[in-house]
């Protein structure tokens, strides 16, 4: 099974360990993993801020970076000297460690590009081949192929985009339950947003952190050591607030927990 890693820009730049862990987990599960080096940002920040034109260009770029030989490739992709492996829409999978960024590709690319003759078909097909990591493991690889061992008490934070755009609910929990020694304690009100919301977090920081504080209060109630999620963005926000407020729990992406449990 051939997997092309989709590494969201801020994971790439700020949380490389999440991407490294994803790579490791996928390889451990027997996938051949490639990383298309020209990918940058999926365009979600622009899209969510209302800059649809900018987001559209980025969506095109994202697709191009996975399909460097495709005729749709645009002139911006200057660094494409040598031909990398081409993503095969019939056969390959794009897998990324973020519900939010995957939702951008899966749910919004087709709409953004539907009027563009060159891209509409590709975007629609690419959308169906793109998976969030835990989704991929549950729905494509088979969760029974995974097992690990790690002594920890963790709580799980459902990211809104994972939960509501992609319908990810039991998948990550199924994975965590396959880790020996790991105890999962559910968070009260686990479907309430943590307050990150992309640019929302800096446009309305007071509201954003008020929401984080609620989440952190609920997390503290669980007495768990680690808050695990499918989305690094939520975790960055919660961890940043937690540190500021003097909490000392750990915040970890589920890929990191999985990688630790198999090492």
């Amino acid at each position, binding site marked *: 099974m051939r997997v092309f890693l989709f590494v969201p820009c801020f994971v790439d730049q700020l949380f490389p360990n999440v991407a*490294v862990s994803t790579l490791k987990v996928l390889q451990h599960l027997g996938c051949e993993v490639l990383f298309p080096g020209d990918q940058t940002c999926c365009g979600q920040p622009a899209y969510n801020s209302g800059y649809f034109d900018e987001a559209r260009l980025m969506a095109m770029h994202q697709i191009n970076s996975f399909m460097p030989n495709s005729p749709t490739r645009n002139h911006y992709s200057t660094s494409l000297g040598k031909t990398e492996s081409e993503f095969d829409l019939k056969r390959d999978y794009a897998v990324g460690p973020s519900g939010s960024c995957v939702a951008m590709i899966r749910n919004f690319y087709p709409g953004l590009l539907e009027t563009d003759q060159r891209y509409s078909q590709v975007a629609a097909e690419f959308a169906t081949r793109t998976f969030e990591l835990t989704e991929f493991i549950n729905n494509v690889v088979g969760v029974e192929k995974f097992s690990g061992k790690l002594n920890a008490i963790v709580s799980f934070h459902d990211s809104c985009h994972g939960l509501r755009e992609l319908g990810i609910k039991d998948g990550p929990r199924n994975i965590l339950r396959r880790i020996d020694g790991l105890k999962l304690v559910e968070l009260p009100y686990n479907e309430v947003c943590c307050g990150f*919301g992309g640019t929302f977090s800096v446009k309305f920081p007071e509201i954003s952190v008020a929401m984080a504080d609620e989440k952190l209060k609920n997390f503290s109630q669980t007495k768990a050591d680690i808050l695990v999620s499918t989305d690094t963005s939520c975790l960055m926000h919660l961890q940043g607030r937690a540190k500021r407020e003097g909490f000392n729990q750990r915040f970890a992406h589920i890929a990191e927990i999985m990688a630790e449990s198999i090492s």
Partner: protein
Amino acid sequence: MTEIEARHFKELYKKQIVNDQLRANLSKATLQAVDSRGESFKEVDFEFLRKQAKMIREESVSHLNQLLSQFEDHARENGCKIFYAETPEKARAYVLDVAMKNNVNLIVKSKSMVTEEIELVPFLSGKGIETVETDLGEYIVQLAKEKPSHITTPAIHKSRTEIAQLFHDKIGTEMNNDPKFLTAEARRVLREKFLSANMGISGANFLIAETGDAVIVENEGNARLSTSSTDIHVVVTGIEKVIPKFSDLRIFMRLLARSSTGQKLTSYVSVLRGPRREEEKDGPREVHIVLVDNGRSSLLGTEHQEVLNCIRCGACLNVCPVYRNIGGHAYGSVYPGPIGSLVTPMYFGEKNAPDLPFASSLCGNCTEVCPVGIEIHHQLLSLRNEIVAAKKSRIERFLFKNYRKTMLRPGRYRMMGRFARMFSKSALVRRMMKQWTDYRDLPEFPSQSFREMYKSGKLN
């Protein structure tokens, strides 16, 4: 365009969010509503109901002309008078006219969001006609000279102690913060108003095209009294409220109360078919139905048309974590919360609410609970796009232009990333990130990005 407070959202919410009492009141009330909502849907198939409701509302809105004329024909046959008002001014003038012609001096009024929207009560009171809100929550808000902060629970922002103080000051009751006592006092005062009033005003939750019925859903009994205890009853509602069939109520009645308060059905549902008949001994002798447009028709045929499907249940407010932290008044509009962030710019103009569509983390909980399947958070996104296209914040434009340039050129992206990580501890970067760093710590920036690690080959 009339200016509304929603323009100043950024100042308004900052005042509300520091109010811990308010946030505690809201948190308690909304989470309770969320829990009972969940409980109440166990007996029925929510997705089935929602699908049906969405379909019926879509049909209603997309056949609005046809259904309105059907409704109006039947309502006239039932003896009602119909009045269409394009603007708030026109609607207010008509209601005043009805009141003047009948020498009305006291009006009892039940809850209606449209009357809030057109500011009917202050208008009538200004003309010397005492107009009393009779829904307990609305009455509290009216006594406090405030505006409702929630679509279905108007005084949700107030604690019992605040209400006790208010009643003590305004209607001279003893200081007792027991809700039972306070409710009984309100009943006593308002009962007298019902018995003295000579006109009643209500809204309508649904208008039924095939029968000309106005359907009103409520819990206290004040709407029954407002619609039935005076000689003149005026319904003020929006043109979009019409649904095709009486039998469609089997869907909406099961959704509305559950979504709103977690009840299977509200205490009272009045299906009103015009003035009293000859054989009837009470009920109004005159029924007027005022159908207000106020911007609604302009949404037809646009991608926002589905917003007209809304049945004003308030479920999206209850689940919204933003609403829960800032309360309804912060929105500066009669329609707060997620649906308010759509309706306010749509009815009152985007210039009046430039920030509201952005005041959402796009968590999508609103969309998840909407009983008529409005994609609320996706609607917010498309409004954002319209606002950005119309009003260009120069700084933001500049930032997004550069962001685009960077993200479309992998080489530039790599370089910018490296710089940002290298200088992450510098005062300049921290300053640029002020909106983040004033409230939260930044993560430790790694020395190498993933792609650098990957390229160096040490991952394989």
